[in-house]
Every structure is written in structure tokens, then in C-alpha cells.
């Protein structure tokens, strides 16, 4: 292999992953040497789902210099304050996992510990009252923070829902404007170097050959390059995340426009609901060992709150991760690199952090092992952290009488998660590991929401003056309630700032 900068980057696939990569990697062309091309096939199409995000997507937009309102307009997007989990702890109960924090720490004592201490003292206040995002979500209201760190509004953290097809088109315009060249065509063959096993070119069905130095595999579940051609093994996680199929269907928009994603537990899986400006996205994620495809689709259709506007689309997957997401001169992003179900809307985020890692570790044409090893090490760590958080939702369910859910409750979880749960159960302690994505507030929201209640609270919380704490807590909840009531409705806010064109 030669030294010197990578001359040509070839992105295979034009779904969300492909176009996110193209938009971000277009910056590399600034050195005057590197060229970025993307190949996609309209005939094959994209997976067509993946429409809910988490707040760090805003960093990605900012890195690309994308105006947020223009982005929401172009993607028929809406705002998201968190996820409602309906029926996940038990039938009839629901909680919201909000973005952002709960309350404010008091004298260095974490707020959830203060809350636990109040509860132990006979004052069981709803945890929801101490999240501005949850309070606003329950009222269907939304507003961005106003930049004043002293205002309760500064507690608002948000992400987006968007139309996946429109998002890819939006990023395509961005990338093409910055010099990325798109080739339409179906990849028939991946050519490898006989000696090194590196990918040398993609041969298209129409006879064109696209050569390159670095290949980004964004071909979705097919994993044409990283899997089929390079044989990077797949680590199966379905013993922890047992759902293996999904069926998706759009429906008409309903009022009010909710500022959050909803996930509703069903007999052998769960149903998602993603509110957009022009439609609602719905789907059912399920375990084929416990429910038939027909029954899953029927359950989904029976539980729409608008009218279905297309036929249900089936999808199959195996949860898990590519053992070497970077192998030889190929880096896999998106579905080609692995799949975890969209319970916490983390897939697009994983694409995003894959891209920033790749940029930070961008190799030269000699492809030293260090970059690859570090990329793979960090990827494995980040995926495993998210995996544990998702497993928690399943493990900690109390849906007695349903075999799928009982099986989940009985499963043996990874040691890392078992430790986290034991520590929380003992006295509500939480520690964030190695820059993990989900904060203490997120873990607390889901643990408490799923009914994992600590046996005690941190003894430090007992050193606070109980009367003062009650007072402070009451004032916090009141400030959040008043702030949320003063916000515009989600629908009004969008109409005023970022309404998409009627479709």
C-alpha cells in the first residue's frame, strides 16, 4: 500500500447512513486531493424507516452548518422531547423518558436522591413533575430554550422526528453542493486485491467500475462490502434483544401533534408512533417466535389513531453488531454495521458518531492498523453501552402472563448491566461510564419508570434540611408547570417557525 492521503472515498449506499457520511466527508475534499463519490440504486431503495432521533443530532447539523428551521421545513419534521413508554412496566401504566435533566441538584446531592429521600419521608411526588420536558410533553407544548441559563426553559433538551426519505434527499443536496458525485446503479460485484484482500473497486451491473482507496459500506442490512465481500463476522445479540421483525405503516396526521415518540408494549413486542407534519409513522417490532407476521400486522393496523395511507411493509433483522465494523479498507456505517432496535432511537446517532470517529481517525493510503483498531475498540464500547440500556427496558418489565415478556424478565443480562441494576437497587446510585451516551437522568427515568425502585437512598441526602427540601422541590415543580403552560402548543410552534409545504 502506498503512503499519502486517501485519494478517493467511495460510499456504497444512499440511505440515511450513506448521505450522512457523504455530507460530512465532503469536508475532506478541502485538501485538493481527496474525492468523494456515492453509489446507490433506486431500484433497491432504502429501508424507509428511522425517523426519530436524540438530541446529539443537533451537533451533527451544526457541524454541517445546517440551519435547524430549514431542516425541519425540508423534512416535514417535528420536535421531540422524549419517549413515552406505555405498558412497558405493566399494562395500563406509562412513563416518559425525557431528554434533559430532572430538577436541580441540591447542595451537591443528585436530584433523584433528593426525590428518593422525600419519598422515604412519606412524600411520594411524581418524578415527572421535575422534568420540564415531560411536563411540556404531557401538555403537547414545545418551545426551544431561550439562551438564558437562569430560566427554567434552559432545561429543555430536544431532538427531531423527520421523514427519512426527505432527510436523505436533504443531505444529498447538501453533499452534492459540496462536490460529492453520485452514481446511480446497482453494485453487482465487489472486487478485491488478490494479495491484500483490500477492496479495489465496485463493479456495477451496467459495466461501470468504480475504483477507490477507502470504501464506506452503507448498503443496509445487505452489508455487501463488509459482510459479503470481506466476511466481517456478526455478533448475534438476539438472546438479549429478541425482537427480529418489524412491520411499518404510515397513517394520517392526527391532532394534537405530540412532541414525543410513543412506544407501546404489545403481546410479543412493541409499537412505535412517530408524529410528523404530513403523516404519522407507525410500526411494530416483534419477536417471530411468539407472534405470527399476520397477527403482528393486524395488531398494528388495529391500533392506529389515523387512517393507514399505505400497505404495511415487513422488515427482518437480527440484533447484533459487526465484530469488525472497520476491516481492511472498508468501514461500515448504519444497518451494515449492526442493528439494535429503535427503542431509544439510537441508530442514526450511531451513524453520526461512527462518522465523527472516522473523521478523527481518518487513515492515509497505507491504512495503518492503529486507526482501525481504535475505531473498532470505541465502536464496540459505545454499542455495548447502548445495548445495555435497551436490555434494561425488557429485563425490568412486569408484564406477567405473557410468555414473551416473562422470558425477557427471566433472561440473564450482561454483567455490566447487572452491576448497574444492583447498584441502583441498593441505594439509587448511578455512574456514567466512559462518556456513555445516556446520562444518569436517562438511566433513572427508565429504571424508576420500569419499577426498579431503590431499597434505600444515599445517606448524604439525609443531611439536607427536610423542610427546606420540600420547599425547594415544590418551587421547582411549580416553576416547570408554569413555564410549560406558557409555551405554545407544538403544532403552533411549528406553524410559526418551520412549517413544511403541504403535501
Amino acid at each position: 500500500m502506498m503512503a499519502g492521503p486517501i485519494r478517493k472515498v467511495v460510499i456504497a449506499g444512499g440511505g440515511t447512513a450513506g448521505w450522512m457520511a457523504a455530507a460530512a466527508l465532503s469536508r475532506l475534499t478541502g485538501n485538493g486531493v481527496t474525492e468523494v463519490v456515492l453509489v446507490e440504486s433506486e431500484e433497491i431503495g432504502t429501508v424507509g424507516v428511522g425517523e426519530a432521533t436524540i438530541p446529539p443530532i443537533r451537533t451533527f447539523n451544526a457541524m454541517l452548518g445546517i440551519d435547524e428551521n430549514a431542516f425541519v421545513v425540508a423534512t416535514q419534521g417535528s420536535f421531540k422531547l422524549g419517549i413515552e413508554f406505555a405498558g412497558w412496566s405493566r399494562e395500563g401504566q406509562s412513563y416518559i423518558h425525557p431528554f434533559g435533566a430532572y430538577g436541580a441538584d441540591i447542595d451537591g446531592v443528585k436530584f433523584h436522591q433528593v426525590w428518593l429521600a422525600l419519598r422515604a419521608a412519606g412524600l411520594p411526588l411524581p418524578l415527572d413533575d421535575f422534568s420540564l420536558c415531560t411536563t411540556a410533553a404531557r401538555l403537547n407544548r414545545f418551545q426551544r430554550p431561550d439562551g438564558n441559563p437562569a430560566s427554567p426553559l434552559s432545561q429543555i433538551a430536544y431532538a427531531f422526528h423527520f421523514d427519512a426519505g426527505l432527510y436523505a434527499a436533504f443531505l444529498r443536496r447538501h453533499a452534492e453542493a459540496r462536490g460529492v458525485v453520485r452514481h446511480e446503479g446497482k453494485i453487482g460485484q465487489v472486487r478485491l486485491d488478490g494479495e491484500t484482500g483490500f477492496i479495489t473497486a465496485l463493479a456495477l451491473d451496467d459495466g461501470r467500475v468504480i475504483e477507490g482507496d477507502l470504501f464506506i459500506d452503507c448498503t443496509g442490512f445487505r452489508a455487501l462490502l463488509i459482510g459479503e465481500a470481506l466476511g466481517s463476522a456478526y455478533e448475534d445479540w438476539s438472546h438479549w434483544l429478541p425482537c427480529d421483525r418489524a412491520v411499518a405503516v404510515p397513517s394520517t396526521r392526527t391532532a394534537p401533534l405530540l412532541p414525543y415518540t410513543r412506544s407501546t408494549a404489545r403481546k410479543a413486542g412493541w409499537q412505535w408512533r412517530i408524529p410528523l407534519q404530513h403523516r404519522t409513522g407507525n410500526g411494530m417490532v416483534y419477536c417471530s417466535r411468539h407472534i405470527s407476521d399476520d397477527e403482528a400486522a393486524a395488531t398494528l393496523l388495529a391500533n392506529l389513531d389515523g387512517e393507514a395511507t399505505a400497505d404495511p411493509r415487513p422488515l427482518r433483522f437480527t440484533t447484533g453488531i459487526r465484530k469488525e465494523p472497520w476491516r481492511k479498507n472498508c468501514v461500515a456505517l448504519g444497518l451494515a454495521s449492526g442493528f439494535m432496535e429503535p427503542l431509544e432511537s439510537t441508530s442514526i446517532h450511531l451513524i453520526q458518531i461512527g462518522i465523527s470517529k472516522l473523521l478523527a481517525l481518518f487513515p492515509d493510503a497505507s491504512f495503518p492498523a492503529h486507526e482501525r483498531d481504535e475505531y473498532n475498540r470505541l465502536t464496540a464500547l459505545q454499542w455495548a453501552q447502548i445495548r445495555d440500556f435497551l436490555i434494561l427496558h425488557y429485563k425490568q418489565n412486569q408484564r406477567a402472563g405473557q410468555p414473551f415478556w416473562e422470558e425477557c424478565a427471566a433472561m440473564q443480562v450482561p454483567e455490566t448491566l447487572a452491576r448497574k441494576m444492583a447498584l441502583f437497587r441498593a441505594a439509587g446510585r448511578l455512574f456514567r461510564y466512559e462518556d456513555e451516551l445516556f446520562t444518569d437522568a436517562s438511566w433513572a427515568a427508565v429504571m424508576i419508570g420500569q419499577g426498579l425502585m431503590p431499597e434505600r437512598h444515599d445517606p448524604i441526602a439525609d443531611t439536607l434540611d427536610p423542610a427546606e427540601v420540600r420547599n425547594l422541590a415544590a418551587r421547582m415543580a411549580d416553576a416547570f408547570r408554569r413555564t410549560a403552560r406558557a409555551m405554545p402548543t407544538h403544532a403552533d410552534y411549528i406553524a410559526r417557525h418551520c412549517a413544511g409545504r403541504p403535501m
Partner: protein
Amino acid sequence: MPADAPLATITIAGGGFAGWLAASLLARALPDLAISLVEVPGPDRSLGVAAAADVLLPDDLPLLGEAGWNGPDLLRGGRAGFVLGTALSGWRADGATAFMPYGEIGAPLGPIPFHQLVSTMRRRGQPVNMANYALGALAAQAGRFAPPPPGDETVHAALTFGLSIDTARLAEMLRGDALERGVRLAGTWHGEAVQRGDGGVQRLVLADGTSLAADLVIDASGPASPLSGARDDWSPWFPFDRVASARRTSEAPAPPYVHCDAHHAGWQSFAPLADGVGELFVFSSADAPGAPAAEPFAPGCQQAAWTGNVVRIGGAAAQHDPVAGLQLHLALADVLRLIALFPAACEHPAEAAEYNRQWREKTECAFDTALLRLACSGALGAVWDRLRARALPDRAAYRRDLYAANGRVVLHDGEVLEEAGWTALFDALCVQPRKGDALSDALPSAKITAHFAAIRQAMIAAVGRMPPYQALMAQVAA
């Protein structure tokens, strides 16, 4: 004792710095606890090696502040000097001196870290001295200093400093505080204890024959603790085995940084105090025949810091080579971790397991920091050659090799240096990335040069507005 009986009594074994630190902070955080402390005769090795001065890192100061000890208390009680970083002499193969500042170096350009910009320019043939873009280094050079005023949002706010304290004096102050808060001085302990089956302790037997039971025992009696459990030996990595320390007084305050000088058999450091200098000599006995009297020490750590009801903190948990000046920082981290995980009940397997996990992480990061500081050096001498000839353990080697490949810094949970600190360490010791960052290399030189110039100009202006260090110290003394 019933498993969920509330944990109400603590005994601290060892009245050195670490013991009194634990006593003071625990008494402040958990006023309802009944805390006793037993003293151990002999010099204070509770932090690891007995040093006249120890360093509080920049990040330690706000943590201590939250725990109730703010800057002025520490300055006064510890006869402290300010520390902006470490000046190195004799550490580089090219003979040059170097400065490792605390805090950020330069500023990133969008998503590109500063040191990657430096690396790009160097490979384009332009020499860049990173210390020229660190506020602390510039202030130290100019002999100017002032802590940034609270709420400051100017360049000055980036000035990052630690404190070098007179260990014995500060221990005195912590002791006074603890006793005032009701910590009971229970007597002298010579090391006799009645063990429990689980690695814990039922009671300590004191010098006067009485015995002392406690729900939790905090072992702060140093590396030679009688409560020591199974231990990992680090001497294959760390050849230095002798330490001596002295405190010298001086008329004028020493400059605001630690000076560390490598010599053929080891190294010595000079830490500034308000009225003098704390000196530390560390060397390999095999390489320094006829060296003056010094105490032996042997780097290593306990396999578990918390077993049964015994929590080992500071030097009782791990004896680090003192080169990175971390022993006070680590003891403080131990005490704060114990408070953060303080068990409510006498049976506490989840808390102990988590404590051990976090402690091990931190211990390994500190191990890497000290080891790479030594092994990447170009110091002259047979002991240094032996040190460099030995293959590094995987984790430390990975850190060095990745940085040398492309300037990427590996960060784990227990890090004591963070990205800027590792960069400063590697750069000071001449470990330079072979390959550039792709985004940085895509930038024109003019753009990078302009960014550098803007940073330097702003920093020089900020330093110019600081008072002379001597004047500040005179004010502190008054």
C-alpha cells in the same frame, strides 16, 4: 449483625494525611456517623511515600471546595504555592527543557483539536512550541499570576492551576477540623486486629489492650499496612526504589510550577511552597551506590481496595511511583469515592464492588501516567536505558503507539490527565504523531497560522494584565 443493620460506626486506621483527610471530609458529609481514628506510630506514609510537599491538581480544588475546604483555607493551612504545570529538565533526548502546563493548550479549530493543527504545521516544516499557546506556561514564563476571578469569562478564565501544599501542615489543619467535628481520637494502634472470614475486620486491638469494633474500617496506614491483602507488584516496571524528601525555606517564594530534573540514577523535584520548597529525591539504589540515606519503597497495589468491611485508601491501596505527583490527588479521589458510595447498611456488596471497579480504573490510569512519563523520556543513564528496553504492558503501549501513530489520545474513565494533559506529556517527551489528522491536513497553512496568532495574541495580552507572582504571594502572606 443483621445484613441490613444501618452502618453507624467507622474507625479510621492511621492519623497521617490520608486518615485526617478522610476524617474531616466524612465528618462534614455525614455528621451523624460516629467516627473514631487510631494513630499509627512512625513517619506519615499514608499517601504512599513521605513527601514534604504534595500537589493538589486543578480539578481537586473545586471538589475540595464542595466538600467545604476552599482555596484560602488550603493556601493558609497548607502554606501552599500555586502550580501552573511542571518544568522538565534532563528528560529529553535532545537535552532541551520542556514545560507541561495544566489546562488546555491552544484552542480547537471547529472539530479539530489544537495539537492536530500543530502536528500538521510541523509536518509542513514549521516548528511549533506548544507551550507558547498555553496560558499557564506563558504566565509561568512571565512570572505573572492571578487566579481568575469567579465568573470571569475572558481568556484569563482558562488559567488552570493546582496547589502545592506542605503535607504535614495541611494534615494538622484537617486534624483540627475533624476533632472539632466530633471525630474521636481513640488511641494508638500497632497493627493487631481480629479478622473476619471475609477479608474484613471485627475489631482493632489498641496499644493499651482495649479493642475497637466498627461497622466500617478505613485503612489509611500506608503501604505497609497490617491489614494489607493480596498485592500486585509493579517493581518490574518501576526501577526506582529509594525516596528522600526535605523541606527548605527560602526568602522569596519559589516560582509557580514544579520543577522536575532527571539525572542518571533517577529524578528530583522541587515543589513551590509559600515560604520555601518541598524537595523529593527518587532514585534506583542499584544505580546510585553511596547515595545519601533514603527510604525504600516498592510500587504496587492491592488487588482489591475494599474487602469485607475494610476500605484501603491512599498508600494503603496503591503505592505509585511519585513521578507524576498524583499521590494526594489519588487519596482525595479515594475519600470522595467512598463518600459517593457510602453504604447505608452493614452488608454492602454492590457498593464495595463498584468502589473497587472505579478504584481499579483510576489506579490503572495513574499507573499508565507514571509509567509513560518515565518510559517515554530520553533521560540519560543505565537505569533509564533498562526502563526503555522493557516492553510496556499492553494498555500503556496502546496509548503511546496510538498517539505516535496519529495523535489520538486514548481516554478511560479513571483518567488523571485528560486529552490536554496527555498531549502535553507526550509532546514534552518528544513523542510526535507520524501522521496528521485528515481534516487538519485539509486546511491551508495560512488559516492555521492565523488561528495560532490570534490565540497567542489573546494569551499574551491576558498574561500582561496579571500581577507579578511575587506581589501576589506577598499579598497572600499578609
